[in-house]
C-alpha cells in the first residue's frame, strides 16, 4: 500500500503537552494578575477589555474559522448584548446571572434572524448583509430613544453579588475571566461533538454534507445563533466595563477590527482568537494619539498574514516546529498549520458546484 509512514507519535504528544502547559501558565497568570495590578483602574479596564474582545473574537472565529461563514457585523451583535444588558438592568432588579443569560439569548435570537438568509446565500452576500447590520444597529439605537436613551445612551446600573459591586475593576475582571473560561470550555465541547463536526463539514464541503445527514441550511443558522449568543455574553461585560452604553461605541470599524483580529490571530483556533483580541487592544491603546494608526496596522497585518502566513499567528509555532524538524511536512495532529485560508486548496472541480 502506498501509505506514508506515520510520523512518530512522540512528536504529536509533545505538541499536545506543550499546549496544555501553555494553557495552565496563561490561566495561572490571569488568575493572579489582579493581585499585582488590582489597584490600577485603567490597567484593569484594559485587561477586562482584552477578556471582552477575546470572547467576541472567539464567537466570530466559531462562525468564520469553524463555520466558514463571514461576518463583518459582530460589533452590532456586541451592541445588542450591551443594550439588552443596560435596558433590562435599568428596568428590572434581576440577579446578574439572569441579565447575563438574557443578553446572550436576545443576541442569539437576533443572530438567528440575521442568519436565516445565510442558509442559502453565497459568502459575499452574507458579508454584505452583516456589513449593513453592523452599520444599522448603532443607528437603530440612536433612533429608539425611549428604549435606548438615544444619543446619550444608557447608564448601566451596578449589579451586586451580596455586597460586592460587580462593576468594580477586580470583581468584574474575575467575572469576565470566568465567563471567558466557561465559554472556551463550552465551545471546545461543541467542537468535539456532532454539532461541531457538522459546522466544519459544512465549511469544508457543503455539497457532500447532506450525504452525511447534515441539513446544511439549518446548520448555518445554528452556527450564527451560537456565535451570536457568545457575542451577547461579551456585550454584558462590555456594558459593565464601560458603565454606559451609547451608539458611538459601536462603529463599523469595530466590526472590522474584530474581523481583522480573528484573521491575524488565526482562523479555526481558540488560541488565535485570544491572541488576536490581545493584539487588537494593544494596537488600539497605542494608537490613541495617532489617528488612523490602528486601521492601517490591522489592515496591513491582515494583508500580510493572508499572503505569508494564512494560518495566522496561532499557527506560527507549528510552522516553525515543522521548519526546524526538517523538510516542511504536515504535522500528524488533526489541527495543523494549513487552515481555511490556505491557497493549497484546489478550486472546486468541474463536477461540483463550488461555493461562490
Amino acid at each position, binding site marked *: 500500500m502506498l501509505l506514508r509512514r506515520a510520523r512518530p507519535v512522540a512528536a504529536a504528544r509533545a505538541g499536545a503537552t506543550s499546549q496544555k502547559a501553555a494553557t495552565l501558565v496563561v490561566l495561572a497568570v490571569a488568575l493572579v494578575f489582579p493581585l499585582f495590578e488590582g489597584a490600577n483602574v485603567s490597567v484593569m479596564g484594559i485587561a477586562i477589555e482584552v477578556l471582552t474582545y477575546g470572547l467576541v473574537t472567539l464567537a466570530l472565529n466559531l462562525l468564520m474559522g469553524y463555520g466558514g461563514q463571514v461576518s463583518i457585523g459582530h460589533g452590532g451583535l456586541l451592541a445588542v448584548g450591551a443594550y439588552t444588558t443596560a435596558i433590562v438592568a435599568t428596568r428590572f432588579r434581576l440577579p446578574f446571572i439572569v441579565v447575563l443569560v438574557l443578553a446572550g439569548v436576545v443576541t442569539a435570537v437576533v443572530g438567528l434572524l440575521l442568519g436565516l438568509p445565510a442558509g442559502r446565500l453565497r459568502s459575499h452576500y452574507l458579508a454584505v448583509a452583516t456589513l449593513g447590520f453592523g452599520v444599522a444597529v448603532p443607528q437603530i439605537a440612536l433612533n429608539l430613544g425611549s428604549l435606548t436613551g438615544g444619543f446619550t445612551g444608557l447608564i448601566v446600573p451596578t449589579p451586586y453579588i451580596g455586597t460586592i459591586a460587580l462593576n468594580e475593576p477586580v470583581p468584574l475582571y474575575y467575572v469576565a475571566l470566568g465567563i471567558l473560561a466557561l465559554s472556551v470550555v463550552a465551545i471546545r465541547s461543541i467542537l468535539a461533538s456532532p454539532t461541531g*463536526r457538522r459546522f466544519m463539514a459544512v*465549511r469544508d464541503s457543503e455539497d457532500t454534507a447532506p450525504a452525511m445527514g447534515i441539513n446544511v441550511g439549518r446548520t448555518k443558522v445554528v452556527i450564527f445563533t451560537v456565535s451570536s449568543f457568545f457575542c451577547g455574553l461579551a456585550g454584558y461585560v462590555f456594558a459593565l466595563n464601560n458603565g454606559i452604553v451609547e451608539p458611538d461605541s459601536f462603529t463599523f470599524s469595530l466590526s472590522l477590527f474584530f474581523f481583522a483580529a480573528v484573521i491575524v490571530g488565526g482562523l479555526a483556533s481558540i488560541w488565535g482568537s485570544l491572541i488576536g483580541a490581545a493584539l487588537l487592544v494593544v494596537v488600539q491603546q497605542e494608537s490613541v494619539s495617532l489617528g488612523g494608526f490602528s486601521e492601517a496596522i490591522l489592515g496591513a497585518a491582515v494583508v500580510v498574514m493572508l499572503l505569508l502566513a494564512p494560518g495566522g499567528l496561532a499557527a506560527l509555532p507549528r510552522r516553525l516546529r515543522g521548519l526546524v524538524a526538517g523538510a516542511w511536512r504536515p504535522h500528524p495532529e488533526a489541527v495543523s498549520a494549513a487552515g481555511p485560508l490556505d491557497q493549497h486548496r484546489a478550486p472546486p472541480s468541474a463536477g461540483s458546484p463550488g461555493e461562490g
Partner: protein
Amino acid sequence: MLRIEDLSLSFGGVQAIDALHLTVPDGTITALIGPNGAGKTSVLNVVNGLYRPQRGCVLHDGFDLLSLPSYRVIQRGITRSFQNVALFGGLSVIDNLILGFDHRSRTGVVRDLLRTRALRAHERAARIRAEEVLEFLGITAIARRRADELAFGERKLVDLGRALMPRPNLVLLDEPAAGLVEAQKAWLAQVLSRIPDEFGAAVLVIDHDMRLVLGVSTWVVVMDFGRKIAEGTPDEVRANPVVLAAYLGGGPAGAAQGQ
C-alpha cells in the same frame, strides 16, 4: 433492495437519464458502467436526493426515496462515495469517518454543549466503529492526519470508509478506483468484494476500470446516453456486441474503454 423504475432526468436541455429500470438486490454488488456522460453519476445523485427527476420512482425496500430531502437519505441506510472525493479537508481522518456515523446521534446543540450521557455514549460508539473501519481498510496509521494532507489513494479509502461507517444496507460508489495505481486497485477489489459479507450491504458501483468492476460484481448494467442498453452477468456483458459498440463507437473515450 433498491428498485428504480422508469426514471427520467433532464437538465439544461440534456436528457441525462432516459426511462431507466434498475434493480439492486440485497447483498449483491451491481456494477453500473458505460461511456463518459452516460448518466451514471446522475443515477446516484437521484438516489441520494441531490437531483429531482422529472419522472419515475426510486423504491428502497418499498419506500419512496424521492419523498425524502437529501439529508434524510442516509437514515435509510444508504451511503455513498464521491467521484471528486470531497472529504472534509479541515478535519482529521477519524473525524471524517465519525461524520459518516454522526446522523445517529440524537443530541442537539444544547446536549452536545453539556456533554450529556447520550452524547458521550454516541462518541464512544462512533470512535469504536471508526477504528473498526480503519482496520477493515488497513489505514489505521493515518487516523489522526488532516484529510487535506492525505495522498490521493488514502483519500479514496477514507471516502469509502466514511460510507461504510453506519453499517449501511446500500452503498453507492462513484468511481472508487479512479486515479489509483494497480496495487491499490487490487487492494480495493478485495475490499469491495468483502463488503456484502462483512456489512450485509448491497453495493452499486460505477467505475471505468472494466477489469476491476467486472471482477467484483455479480450483475452488470450498461448505460449509454442515459438509457440502459444491456445488462447481465459480467461474462454476458463482456461478450455483448451492443456494449462493445457503445464503447468503441463513442469516440476517443469509447475506443480507450474498449479494451
